[in-house]
């Protein structure tokens, strides 16, 4: 009987060892929390500072800098800075432009890229592997390498307009909505994401539908797409964020105030050398929609970023 050979001292020793281990772990855990909280403060404090400063007049902001009040909405708190933003620049227009541009890019992007991925992953045709290889090859080239030739190129592209009932070609896409949307609709990474998601959906579903007489587009629309919700969420988020944050591209191709998106509008506002309070108000104004989206769809946001790691 092994149990009877265990002496009291052995037991006591074992218990105290376990206690020590647990206590050590508890200290480790408290330390771990302290570290994590310090890091949370490090990532949060500039954002809190921005939100709080957007509510204060400049002299109040600077007076509060040397005390914790810099991070608290106290003192002369008002929405005056926001009023100042709308008095100085057409901020609503910039916001409306960005919302329209990002939504249209997302909708067209989901349609065009999923359709292409459907054909590549589920249909048999010659040239399929070549097209897939060409799409994957585009993944390694950053936008900055061809952005400048692209400016020259879009300035030459044609567009069909109807003037007084007569269709007519015009040239040059600068200062339009379409130049901010159409170049970013087809996206190799979105195609790739859909492609890998589609290959997890059983092909027997397509075959059964074909036997029932469904056409390819019907299979795409009524069978495969409804099952690809997570892929669509990922593609939507990964298209929306860069579209909303676009800066380099609209800076170069949009000069007119009417077509300007929020980020270029912010930089323009910054160049006007207005007070810091209104600057922070504008910055808050264009950050809140994205923050709200992120906080409500957190899991999907983080999941979509995580899945962008699969391409390595």
């Amino acid at each position: 009987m092994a149990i009877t050979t265990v002496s009291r001292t052995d037991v006591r020793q074992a218990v105290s060892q376990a206690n020590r281990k647990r206590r050590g772990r508890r200290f480790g855990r408290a330390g771990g929390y302290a570290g994590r909280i310090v890091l949370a403060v490090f990532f949060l404090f500039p954002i809190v500072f921005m939100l709080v400063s957007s509510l204060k007049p400049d002299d109040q902001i600077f007076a509060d800098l040397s005390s914790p009040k810099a991070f608290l909405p106290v003192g002369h708190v008002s929405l005056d800075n926001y009023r100042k933003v709308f008095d100085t620049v057409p901020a609503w227009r910039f916001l409306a432009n960005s919302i329209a541009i990002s939504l249209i890019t997302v909708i067209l992007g989901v349609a065009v890229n999923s359709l292409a991925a459907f054909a590549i992953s589920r249909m048999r045709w010659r040239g399929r592997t070549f097209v897939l290889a060409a799409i994957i090859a585009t993944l390694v080239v950053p936008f900055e390498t061809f952005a400048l030739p692209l400016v020259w190129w879009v300035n030459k592209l044609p567009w069909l307009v109807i003037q007084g009932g007569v269709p007519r070609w015009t040239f040059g896409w600068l200062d339009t909505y379409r130049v901010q949307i159409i170049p970013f609709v087809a996206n190799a990474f979105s195609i790739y994401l859909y492609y890998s998601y589609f290959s997890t959906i059983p092909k027997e579903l397509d075959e059964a539908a074909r036997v029932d007489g469904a056409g390819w587009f019907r299979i795409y629309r009524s069978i495969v797409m409804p099952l690809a919700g997570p892929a669509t969420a990922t593609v939507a988020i990964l298209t929306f964020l860069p579209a909303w944050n676009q800066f380099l591209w609209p800076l170069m191709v949009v000069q007119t105030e009417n077509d300007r998106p929020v980020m270029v509008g912010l930089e323009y506002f910054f160049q006007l050398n207005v007070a810091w309070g209104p600057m922070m108000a504008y910055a808050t104004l264009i950050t809140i929609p994205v923050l709200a989206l992120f906080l409500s769809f957190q899991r999907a946001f983080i999941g979509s970023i995580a899945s962008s790691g699969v391409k390595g």
Partner: protein
Amino acid sequence: MTQQIAVAPPARVEPPPEPATRGRRRRRAERAEARAARTFVAPAAVLLTVFFFVPVLLCFALAFTNARLISPHGPQFVGLDNFTRLFSDPLFWRSLRNTVFFSAVVVPLQSGFALVLALLINAQIPGVNFFRTVYFLPVVTSIVVVSILWTFMYQKDGLVNHLLQAASFNAIQGADWLNNPSTAMPAIIFMSIWQAVGFHMVIWLAGLQTIPGDLYEAAELDGATTWKRFRFVTWPGLRATRTFILVTITIAALSLFAQIKVMTNGGPLDSTSTVVFQAVRAGYEQQQTAYASAISLVFFVLVLMVSLVQRYLTRDKD
């Protein structure tokens, strides 16, 4: 017709003329399938051709011409003129040096810091979702917003210096961060890491979660210390993630532009000018598309070289 075949009893023997028509029918169905597939791919293929492949080729072609953004004449071939001009421009070398410096500092710091954060939020403790959300917040904040916010904080009498004074009991007075050639780039580096590190934290985290838990249990049974568990279980399990993170951070760092444009405009004394910033200045502000294409081409070669070298260094050695 397909329905007829579907309901036909499986044992039925086809009459002799059937196979020929069936073959023809199948061929017709295959052709229809290929036609449908090409129609589905067409929008994406056309868009990628017009807005990716053509501009990339244009970058190569225009770099050897005198093309201007707006010009009555078409581009003319000028040979290597743009490159001789580029390589004899001290500002270009300065920008290249700044870009390489930025990347050389950001790549190890940001990937290491991101890994530490990922390990911290991979723990099974309550409240971990909160920390993950907070560490990730700057990533969803636009880089333009972040740049303006930190320009404000980096002022001589700004928040950063006040915090430094408070933390050091007035021992550190701080600097005029963005207006001093020796502190401007480090200040931008610090801010860039603050903004982007959450992105790579999430990618590390996805990599960490692919490592099976029983490996850790086995290591613990063998009495492996925390460090040994990291060294012999975690690190080898992150090989693929590591390559991906290195390549993406490097490419993002080499493309540095928005922060520079908003915060310093390349100054003070060109100490923060970068390759992409130079390309934009030449191609957009001075409308010299050809010269900008030459700069872009150099940038392209740089990116290509770096990712090839990294892929080679982190290749599967088995």
